[in-house]
């Protein structure tokens, strides 16, 4: 009994129902053909000895001439009957009770195709997986393969140019939350990341205090800020924020705490947005891909991502803006 046999919605009756209808149809066709090949019709012959009609009249005046098919034609029909018998012996066409001599299944065919594809592409992946990522990143074909994997799995969040958008890091700017070494990128892809900035509004104080800290943070990267507020905010930053972002505010890759002294902003670089981040915190997830991509695939996509900020030659990595015509 197959798996569906256990289902309460399934009865073995339908197996027999289908099998009997199929067999009766096939045998019926053969019998009908045999009868037709032996059947005769009465035809009218006129005074000149010519065959007129078969004598059938429909609709009052439609008559049938006698135009017999060539005899070999009926063998074509017998061949189709023979074909269906052979087919039903080889394939599971008679309900689930008969699996067919070939034991063919859809799942089996799919698995066979996957196996064939693995056998074909496996060696290509394996060859790159054995090379260090820096070397793979220099290989044009490997980069194409990596880009293809990236477009199918990563571009949904990071964009097809890997430059991200609000809440999704830019992977092409050389700035990394957790570090940009090849091994780190592989670790990020394999295990995923969960970046947490806790809500710090209460720890810092009131609304004005948060605004002071936000302006101090902006001053760290020489962004537009209110210098009076920034001076006031420094003390709070050193006691509260420096724990993660460091006394020099250069961040901590071990925690995923961002560098606040550059102009790279994940959620936006205005004072209001920074205040919002401090007050409400942020929680961001990079999912783990170990169950989605294979090791060699992760290796290739890591090489592609690494190449974006390290080769300088890859497409889309040239930041120079050119005026459009």
């Amino acid at each position, binding site marked *: 009994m197959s798996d569906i046999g256990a289902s309460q919605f399934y009865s073995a009756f339908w197996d027999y129902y289908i099998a009997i209808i199929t067999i009766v149809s096939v045998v019926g066709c053969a019998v009908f053909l045999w009868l037709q*090949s032996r059947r*005769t019709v009465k035809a009218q*012959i006129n*005074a000149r000895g010519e065959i007129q009609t078969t004598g059938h009249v429909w609709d009052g005046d439609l008559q049938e001439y006698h135009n017999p098919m060539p005899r070999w034609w009926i063998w074509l029909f017998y061949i189709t009957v023979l074909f269906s018998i052979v087919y039903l012996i080889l394939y599971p066409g008679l309900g689930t009770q008969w699996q067919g001599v070939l034991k063919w299944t859809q799942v089996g065919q799919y698995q066979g195709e996957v196996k064939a594809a693995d056998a074909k592409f496996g060696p290509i992946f394996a060859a790159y997986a054995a090379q260090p990522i820096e070397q793979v990143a220099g290989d044009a074909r490997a980069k194409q393969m990596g880009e293809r994997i990236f477009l199918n799995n990563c571009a949904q969040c990071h964009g097809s*140019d890997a430059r991200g*958008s609000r809440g999704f890091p830019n992977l092409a700017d050389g700035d990394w939350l957790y570090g940009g070494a090849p091994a780190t990128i592989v670790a990020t892809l394999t295990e995923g990341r969960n970046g947490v900035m806790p809500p710090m509004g209460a720890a810092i104080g009131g609304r004005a205090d948060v605004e002071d800290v936000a302006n101090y943070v902006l001053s760290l990267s020489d962004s537009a800020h209110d210098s009076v507020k920034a001076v006031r905010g420094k003390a709070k930053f050193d006691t509260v924020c420096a724990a993660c972002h460091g006394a020099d505010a250069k961040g901590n890759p071990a925690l995923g705490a961002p560098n606040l002294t550059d102009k790279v902003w994940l959620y936006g670089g205005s004072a209001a947005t920074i205040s919002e981040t401090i007050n409400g915190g942020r929680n961001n997830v990079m999912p783990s891909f170990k169950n989605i991509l294979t090791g060699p695939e992760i290796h290739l996509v890591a090489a592609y991502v690494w190449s974006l900020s390290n080769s300088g030659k890859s497409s889309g990595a040239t930041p120079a803006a050119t005026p459009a015509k």
Partner: protein
Amino acid sequence: MDNAVEVKRAPSAPVGVTKAALQAEPREIELQLYAKREEIYPRQRIGDSLGFFQKWRWAAVWATQIVFYGLPWLQWNGRQALLFDLAARKFYIFGMVMWPQDIIYLTAILIIAALTLFLFTAIGGRLWCGYACPQTVYTEIFLWIERHIEGDRAKRMRLDKEPLSARKLALKTFKHGAWIAVALWTGFTFVGYFTPIRGLAVEVATFAAGGWSLFWILFYGFATYGNAGWMREQVCKYMCPYARFQSAMFDPDTLIVTYDRERGEPRGAGSKKTTRPEQGLGDCVECKLCVQVCPTGIDIRNGLQYECIGCAECIDACNYVMGKAGMPKGLIRYSTERALTEHYAAKGIWGHVLRPRVLVYAAILLAVTAALFVAVAVRVPLKVDVIRDRGALAREAEDGRIENTYRLQVMNTAERGQAFGITASGLPGLELASEPTFDLPGATTRSVLVRLRARPEDIPPGSSKVVIGVKSLDDPGVAVEEKTVFLGLKR
């Protein structure tokens, strides 16, 4: 069974006066629904030279076959001039490369083919069947081979009745060998349209051809051999849908191969002692040559029949006999149903050619043909699809401007590599932030990344229409513009 066959042949027995037939009583007989096929032995030569329409038929054979066998060998710019590369999904037609996106042109070509069939059938009856259809053309070639090996009708009939002898075996082997050679060459040529024929020729010559090429060569070879050697008129009578639906284009003014019953009847060999009118005879001398030459085995004197493929062999045969008998030609001729009943001369037939059916077919045919030529003439060998990033709507760039990302799927459908430039317009201050140019080899496709930037204050709320243009730097005529949208960030 035997009884049925015997009676089935009755229509080709004299329709005129025979005493025995007149005495027969109308009666009923038992017939089977399937009958054994009777071999047809069309007589091919009457007299020393080809008849008028036979010459036209042979001209059609030469014209179609020189094109068919010759075209794949033609070279164009270092490649096969006509190559339908199914695996790469590219059709090379002389200077053009057709991509799957150009399937609309194939549609137009098929419509033109259909309408041409309609038009010619409405005017001239089954001209296609009689002169140009591969089934007719290859049967003609195979019959020619048969005649040169086994002889014409009478000799072939005698040979088939003989018991098997060394001579018969040799003749049959030789004939089938020759047929198979032609058939295999045909199959090889056909496959040569889909896989480069010069390479294929080397493979075949060295017995290295295999896989699908070999399968299709054998398949089409077998189809040619079977259809032209064995099936012949049965394809037209039992299998071909065109044979049947062409009658839908017929009307009383359509040219058909007809027997002039009024002039011919009553038929009979007659005697040379007195004139035929004095013996009460029409012009038909009952030589039955029109039946002997018919490739579908019918008697045209029974009127228009669905088996008639309009090959006009019977016209040539009858004209020859009329010439010998000193009677005017045209007892069997191309005429129309109306011309026969109304007794038109040739002028009357011509006067009925331009009728609404013909004019409508011709007008549609002209329109579609003109549309195809215009479409091919203005076709730009460059295709661009703009695919906007779906996940990332918009982002703030490091300079504070808003950036949108697009991927262009660019196909250079020309055969030479070109450099292309990208432009963008539609918003004030819209700028290209990615590479402004890219190279693309001939007949390839590539995904090109495009980033557009605009200042936040220039972007109206919601989405804005922008246009991305791709233009060849070598040939300004090769340019395509595609519309897309640019999204701002909510402030």
